[in-house]
């Protein structure tokens, strides 16, 4: 026993657990954010208001609270198991999809290595050298959920969905893999940490060396294939509500909620992976980690200034929003306005405090490293958020493909383009000197 404990790396264990909790928290939090985005963006695109009634003591957060109402309701809804289902498959399907969704974030680095003294903490839960191969392997498991869910329901429409999704997922996985080969050729590694670090460089002295710049075709292919893997419009055939209702027709209550949540968790994971591979991950353009550490005080002040002006803009918009709706009666809604103003004021105060703090307090190395990490995590989340936003936006814009068209797009267009991309990348790598 003593032997075991002495050999156990406590620091490694502690930081890994911490990072795992952070990664899970991020994924779970983004489920709520994505559902909220889906509702509000769709409402905005369609000239509607969107959910705004659900409240806790008058606090609605523009409909964000509705997520919790949905959760409570689904938790307390009757969980029915139809008599004709294959129970094992039926029960295991939602578990698989949620597990897979939560595992995806394991290898994604969300900041540069945290250096405290002589300890180096890699900022991803698992720092393994197979990198995105792990992600490809894990996400491809989610097809089992759809297939087992559809097949185990022992019902006709879910069976259609299972059939559709298995064909779709398998064919688009090939494209997904192919689109990344070019990236591997350019960066010479599959290790996500190294890949992200390399994206900090500059091309021609001014362009960030992001994956999207190095591999534009690969990026487009990968994004399209990710959409297909996510079952989002225009590839939402397994769910295709107006055609076959979806693979989860027979599911109710929390089992359905798991499917529902996993969809949005997967969007975030996909967004994080796309960010890491093609949009520089945690890299702040033109601002490498060393620069942040060297000029910590100025960076913090600039960030705080940005935060302060952002808060002022939000406060101004909020003021306009509330003054447009002058309520004749006093009700809970006024409380919400006051609360939001208070929160904004707090943020403004903190940012002013940060500016003052940076001016007068000298920075030690821990502070510098943590500042860099926080900033990088922030930029990583922001990039992922923007991609989530785009995914939702696409959903409310495009119609759905037909099954055979989907296959034709995958096999007849994207596959040849993917192969051509590899060839062209190889040629350029050979011909262009200095590589």
């Amino acid at each position: 026993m003593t032997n075991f404990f002495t050999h156990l790396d406590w620091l490694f264990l502690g930081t890994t657990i911490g990072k795992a909790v952070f990664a899970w928290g991020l994924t779970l939090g983004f489920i709520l954010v994505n559902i909220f985005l889906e509702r509000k963006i769709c409402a905005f695109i369609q000239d509607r208001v969107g959910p705004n009634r659900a409240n806790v003591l008058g606090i609605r957060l523009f409909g964000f609270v509705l997520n919790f109402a949905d959760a409570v309701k689904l938790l307390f809804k009757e969980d029915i198991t139809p008599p004709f289902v294959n129970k094992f498959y039926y029960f295991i399907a939602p578990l698989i999809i949620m597990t897979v969704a939560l595992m995806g974030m394991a290898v994604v680095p969300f900041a540069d290595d945290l250096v405290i003294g002589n300890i180096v903490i890699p900022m991803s839960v698992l720092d393994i050298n197979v990198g995105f191969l792990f992600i490809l392997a894990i996400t491809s498991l989610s097809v089992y959920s759809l297939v087992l869910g559809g097949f185990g329901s022992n019902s006709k429409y879910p069976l259609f969905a299972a059939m559709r999704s298995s064909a779709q997922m398998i064919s688009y996985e090939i494209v997904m893999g192919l689109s990344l080969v070019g990236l591997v050729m350019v960066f010479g590694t599959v290790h996500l940490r190294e890949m992200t670090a390399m994206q900090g460089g500059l091309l021609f002295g001014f362009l960030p060396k992001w994956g999207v710049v190095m591999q534009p075709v690969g990026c487009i292919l990968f994004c399209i294939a990710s959409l297909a893997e996510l079952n989002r419009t225009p590839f939402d055939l397994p769910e295709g509500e107006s055609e076959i209702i979806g693979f989860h027709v027979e599911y109710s209550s929390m089992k359905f909620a798991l499917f529902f949540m996993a969809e949005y968790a997967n969007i975030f994971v996909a967004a994080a992976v796309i960010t890491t591979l093609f949009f520089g991950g945690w890299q702040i353009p033109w601002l490498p980690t060393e620069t942040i550490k060297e000029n910590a005080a100025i960076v913090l002040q600039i960030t705080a200034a940005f935060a302060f002006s952002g808060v002022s803009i939000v406060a101004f918009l909020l003021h306009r929003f509330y003054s447009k709706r002058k309520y004749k009666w006093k009700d809970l809604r006024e409380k919400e306005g006051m609360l939001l103003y208070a929160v904004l004021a707090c943020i403004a105060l903190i940012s002013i405090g940060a500016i003052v703090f940076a001016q007068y307090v000298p920075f030690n190395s821990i502070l510098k490293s943590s500042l860099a990490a926080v900033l990088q995590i922030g930029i990583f989340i922001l990039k992922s958020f923007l991609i989530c936003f785009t995914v939702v936006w696409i959903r409310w814009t495009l119609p759905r493909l037909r099954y055979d068209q989907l296959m034709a797009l995958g096999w007849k267009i994207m596959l040849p383009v993917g192969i051509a991309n590899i060839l062209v990348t190889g040629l350029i790598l050979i011909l262009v000197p200095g590589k």
Partner: protein
Amino acid sequence: MTENNTQAVSLQRIVSQLAGNDHIEFEENCGSLFAVVDSKNIISLLTLLRDTPSTHFDMLVDIVGIDSLSLTPITANRFQIVYVLTSTDLGHRICIKVHLPSDTPEIPSVSSVFAVANWLEREVFDQFGIVFQGHPNLKRLLNFQGFAGHPLRKDFPINGRQAIPESEDLLDEMKIKLGKLGKPIESIKIGECGNTLEKETSNDSDPFIVNLGPAHPIVHGILRLLLAVEGETIIAAVPELGYLHRGAEKNCEAGNYHQVIPYTDRMNYASPMMNNIGYCKAVEKMLGIIISEHDMILRVLFCELGRIMDHLLCLGPHLVDLGALTPFWFLFQIREKIYDIMEKYSGARLTYSCVRIGSFPFPLYEGFTDEVESVLKDLAGAIDDVRRLVERNRIFYDRCCNVGAITPHDAIRNGFTGPCLRATGLEYDLRKNKPYYLYETFDFSVVVGTNGDTYDRFFVRVYEMIESVKIIRQAITRIKAMPPDSSVAEGAKKSKGFKKIAPPAGAIYDSTEAANGELGFFIISDGSPKPYRIKVRSPSLCNYSAIESMVEGTMIADLVSIIGSLNVIGGEIDR
């Protein structure tokens, strides 16, 4: 009128020549020409009328069953059947009337001559119990199979209600169809509402039977299809109707002529005003009323507003069915604005019932024309938005092009009218071919497609809305040019009291170009203030009648697109 008469006389001569030895009696009533023939050689006569170039009655518009039990004079032949035929290029129309005996009402089926007769005859069989010999599938169309009695017979009580515990499984028809395809199924059980996978099927190549509707999102809660699929390809489809059969025709017989108007609203709830106007036009024709020019133009205006409303309601949900959800909201906002105008005028948002026989109940409110103008402006914007979203959208193009295509010949045989017929490239529009309400004085063009596929049907509707806008603009200028206290106010005064109306005894078929096609009213009056029989020729029923041939061979996703583009209004199909 004289021109009409000479046309009718020459038609009479041609038809009697065609009939040869058989003696044909002709009757004429308010512009509808009736030819009374013998039931035995109905097939040969209809074929002759269809194929002779000088008659060329290529479209069977409707088959009307009549129970003349209480119609004077009482005859031994209790039942009558009227075939309404029309010629799409020559523009004339004839009603072929056949008398059938009370005890054995039987007649040869004409479904081999006109494909649309298949369903129309099934409906007559369902409602009157008239047997069509040689019909491929003589089942009830609207009522459920175990229904006892024939509801539109005069001796059937109006509230002879009967309930059924379970829906029909339709497997009998499916088995016949699959047998014809060389894929007989014996062992399939559909199980509980089509939910369980059939365990009895051992053969892997057996088709998969799946039930679609009536609670499926694309069929709007009213249609049902039983599909046999291989993979996602539909190899056989069996449609079932009647889920929204509400017996409006029976109810119409119970009230007086004014009381029918609300029922017409609820037949096509997408464009209720057009149905009101169509019905009132038919009754006015019976009574010999000619409404004032102002009323005519106002009716044109309301008709075109209704057409826009109907097309908006077709295009939006069609796109939703294809997975593009947003355009629906853009389009529905315009509908909402038209609702506002109509509510201001009539007091109701959807079911207006605000046309009276002879006129309108209310004069136009002040500012009506300006509000319509502003809606037209918004409409142009919305159409633009939607066109930008879909017109050059590759996905939309792929989903719609060459899907559910139908040739002009098949379309006519299946009784297609309206945008669905025009999408095939045939320029047939009653507003041009048989102008009513001064449509000939308006400047507009008939929109036609080329392939008759879903894409064409979609864009024929889009461009028809643009044409309707033109017509409305012209109507507004003409209304504005008229003196303000014109005859609407007078007519309103006159028609306010629901005067007792009793058209002279006789039958009439009159039709207008509604949003989905030819909307006809076949009315029989026995001289009393209650209509003896009202049969509605609904465009949706005929447009939907080719669904089997359109769907078979396509995929499930195409079925969604096809049904969406046909614009099937349940209230109109099932009445």
